[in-house]
């Protein structure tokens, strides 16, 4: 088992990038979910989305913290003072929240991905990551239960809810390949037992989500990337700027502030 002191120098940069991508995914999705606070279709769902947002942002803090142990970075600096090109989140999480069907389908796809990823990371040879994955994985079960139920409600609800779910699928499904794509150094991290094999993870996530989506009666096409989408994380459609403007404006108004 390795930790931040014994991690080999060659693996530091790939692991830092991987942890940053995971943290950025959670941070941005958490903020998109938080936009529903006060606007969700039901009071219960308003509370649920606020909980999901709080969890995702808390998980982001965990992953930024693991990065910090390796490179000494300050999570607050990373969140509030990086610009969009330096964020490594996937496109899926930064798209506007859209309607309820898109919000829930995106959440389901992300939850299914996280559950598969965390189950594998729980066996990571990088001990701090394995420990955090066990903790976060338990909490993600609550998310997956919730978003899975919404898939069923939307698919079997009304003609309109089904149509909205189909439209959400047309947007979200082609974004899955980027979320699952390997990053630089993936082979080395896998060889060291730190991160799962990206192709095996991708197959597991696709099989799981395809089975769930077909299970509620959707026709799921082949997984081909959205046009204009690169596998490379770090490019962003216009939407991330909007998230960051909202998220960073207060911190940037007084960069010297030590306490809020």
């Amino acid at each position, binding site marked *: 088992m390795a930790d931040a002191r014994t991690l080999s120098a060659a693996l530091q940069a790939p692991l830092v990038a991987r942890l940053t991508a995971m943290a950025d995914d959670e941070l941005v999705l958490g903020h998109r979910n938080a936009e529903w606070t006060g606007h969700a279709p039901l009071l*219960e769902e308003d*509370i649920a989305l606020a*909980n999901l947002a709080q969890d995702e942002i808390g998980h982001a803090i965990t992953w930024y913290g693991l990065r910090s142990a390796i490179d000494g970075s300050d999570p607050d600096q990373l969140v509030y003072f990086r610009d969009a090109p330096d964020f490594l989140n996937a496109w899926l999480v930064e798209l506007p929240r859209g309607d309820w069907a898109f919000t829930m389908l995106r959440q389901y796809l992300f939850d299914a991905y996280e559950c598969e990823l965390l189950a594998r990371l729980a066996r990571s040879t990088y001990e701090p990551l394995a420990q955090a994955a066990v903790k*976060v994985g*338990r*909490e993600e079960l*609550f998310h997956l239960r*919730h978003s899975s139920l919404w898939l069923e409600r939307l698919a079997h609800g009304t003609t309109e809810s089904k149509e909205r779910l189909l439209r959400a699928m047309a947007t979200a499904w082609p974004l899955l390949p980027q979320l699952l794509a390997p990053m630089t150094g993936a082979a080395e991290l896998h060889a060291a037992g730190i991160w799962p094999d990206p192709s095996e993870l991708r197959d597991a996530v696709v099989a799981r989500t395809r089975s769930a989506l077909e299970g509620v009666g959707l026709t799921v096409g082949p997984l081909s990337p959205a046009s204009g989408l690169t596998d490379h994380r770090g490019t962003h459609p216009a939407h991330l700027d909007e998230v960051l403007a909202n998220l960073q404006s207060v911190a940037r108004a007084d960069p010297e502030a030590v306490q809020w």
Partner: protein
Amino acid sequence: MVTGTPGRREGMPVVGGVAPGAPTEDDALWRALRTVVDPEIPVLDIVEMGIARSVVRDDAGVTVTLTPTFSACPAIAVIEEEAAAAVRRLGHEVRVVTTLHPPWSSDDMTSAAREKLRRFGIAPSEPHGGLIQIALDAPVRCPHCDHPDTYVRNAFGSTLCREIRSCRSCGETFERFKPI
């Protein structure tokens, strides 16, 4: 030296240290930690919640190890400050470490804590031994009338660790501590 929790959580081994119940000077440290309550559940202290994991004393001072119920729990920062202050009042240098490992479980609460929770109006999570999915769907008794016929109104509640349920017998709506 590491001390186990006096009157420690059921099912949790004492990590080294003194025999349970044996009076030691470290009892004062545990007593100090018992004055710190969970700000989201002010009837429970952090020792009976299983949030305070260990107290280690050496030449450099006292190290208190805490673990959050949920990793995104916003109360943990306040608990860290208050635990440090409680130990500092005894005249010790103190360091507080927060760990996610092993993950906190609702099984880490003492049975006395569960009873206090029930009297506070929150249905506790009964011990599940790790079978969380089964516990999530198991019957839950109403903390007001003790009737078992209750149902989930919302899988999420006022804090990360609770869900909202209603009782078909007395009609009351109540919160349940999630099995985790």
